[in-house]
C-alpha cells in the first residue's frame, strides 16, 4: 500500500495532520525563541545550575556584595530548575515521540527506498532524544553540551520537513504507473 493509492479521505486526513504538526512546530519554535532563546548560550543560561552572584567559595555559608539594580535581569527568562526539567522531559518525550511515531507511520507508506525511509523517518526520534537528553546533559554533565539541544531541535525539524515534503508529494502529485 502506497500513499498515492490511499483513498481520498485518508489522503485528506494525512495532509491535515502534517499541516497541523507544521503549524505546531512553528509555534513551538516561536515559543522556544521567546522563552529561552535559540542559541547554545541561551540554552546554557536557562539550564545550567545557577551560579553565585557573589564570590562565594566552597564551604562559605554566606556572602554579600553591592549591586546596581541594572544587574538584576530586566527581561524575565525561564530558568529551568530540576522539577521543571522533569515535567518538561516527560511531557515532551511522550508528545514528541507520539508525533514522531505518527509521522513515521505515514512515511512508512511512502514510495522511497526502505533505506531512505528508515534514515529520514528516524530523524524526529533521534532529534527528540538529543533534545531532551541534551537538556539533562547541560544541567548535570557540562554546560557546553547545550549544543545538543539545538542539534536535536534542528534534526526534529529537518525530519518533519523531509517527511512532510515527500509525503505530500506522494499523496497528491505522484503519478502511479499502471501495471
Amino acid at each position, binding site marked *: 500500500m502506497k500513499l498515492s493509492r490511499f483513498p481520498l479521505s485518508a489522503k485528506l486526513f494525512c495532509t491535515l495532520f502534517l499541516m497541523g504538526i507544521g503549524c505546531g512546530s512553528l509555534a513551538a519554535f516561536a515559543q522556544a525563541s521567546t522563552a529561552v532563546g535559540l542559541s547554545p548560550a541561551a540554552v546554557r543560561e536557562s539550564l545550567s545550575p545557577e551560579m553565585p*552572584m557573589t564570590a562565594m567559595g566552597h564551604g562559605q555559608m554566606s556572602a554579600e556584595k553591592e549591586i546596581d*539594580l541594572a544587574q538584576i535581569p530586566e527581561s524575565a527568562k*525561564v530558568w529551568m530548575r530540576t522539577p521543571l526539567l522533569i*515535567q518538561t522531559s516527560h511531557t515532551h518525550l511522550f508528545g514528541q515521540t507520539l508525533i514522531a511515531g505518527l509521522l513515521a507511520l505515514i512515511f512508512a507508506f511512502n514510495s522511497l527506498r526502505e533505506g531512505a525511509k528508515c534514515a529520514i523517518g528516524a530523524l524526529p526520534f533521534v532529534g527528540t532524544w538529543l533534545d531532551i537528553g541534551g537538556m539533562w546533559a547541560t544541567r548535570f554533565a557540562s554546560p557546553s553540551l547545550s549544543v545538543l539541544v539545538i542539534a536535536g531541535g534542528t534534526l526534529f525539524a529537518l525530519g518533519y520537513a523531509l517527511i512532510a515534503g515527500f509525503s505530500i508529494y506522494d499523496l497528491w502529485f505522484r503519478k502511479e504507473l499502471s501495471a
Partner: protein
Amino acid sequence: MNARLARLLALALAAAAPVRAHITPPVVLASDRDAVARLLAGSSRYFVREVRLSPTQRESVRQKTGWTPDEDLYRFYVGRTADAVTVGATIFISEFTMHGPVRVAVALAPDGRVKGVSVVEVTEETYGWVKPLLDGGFLQRFAGRDAGGALSQTVDSGGSMSRFYAGVIARLVGRAAALYDVTRSTQ
C-alpha cells in the same frame, strides 16, 4: 484496505491523548528587576546576599513550614537607604505544580515580617486561576505576617483551582519568611 487504515488511525488517535498534558507557556507578570524595585521601594542601594543553609537551618525551615529546602544556595536582594538602614530583603521562590511553575517574589522587613508579595511568573493555564486572587487583593493579606501567619492564609471565594493556588502562594510566602528567619542573623 480501508478497515486497516481505520484501525491504524484509531490506534494513533488513542495514543495521542497524553499530548494534551503539555504544560502551557509561561506568563511573566513582572521581571525580577521590576519586582525588586517595587517591593524594596525606598531603597537607594541594593545588595545581593547569598546563603547556604546548614543542616540545622534546613531542619528549622522544615519544622516551620513542612518543606525541606533543596537548593544549594538562596539569594536575597537586600535594599538599604543611603544611610545603610535596611529597608528589606526580597527572595524569589517557586513551586512546580502539575499545571506548571508558580514563582513569587517575597519581600521581608528586617524584623522578619512580610513587607510585600508579587507573583512574577505563572503559566497560561494557571493564570486564569491566579488572576482572581490578584484582582481580589489576596497578596495584600500577607503584609505584616510571619511564616506561620503566611501559611494560614486562605480564600473562601473563587473556584477550587483558585483556592488551590492561594494555598500554593501561601506556602511559598511561608517558606520565604522561614528562610529569611533562619538566616536573619547573617542578613
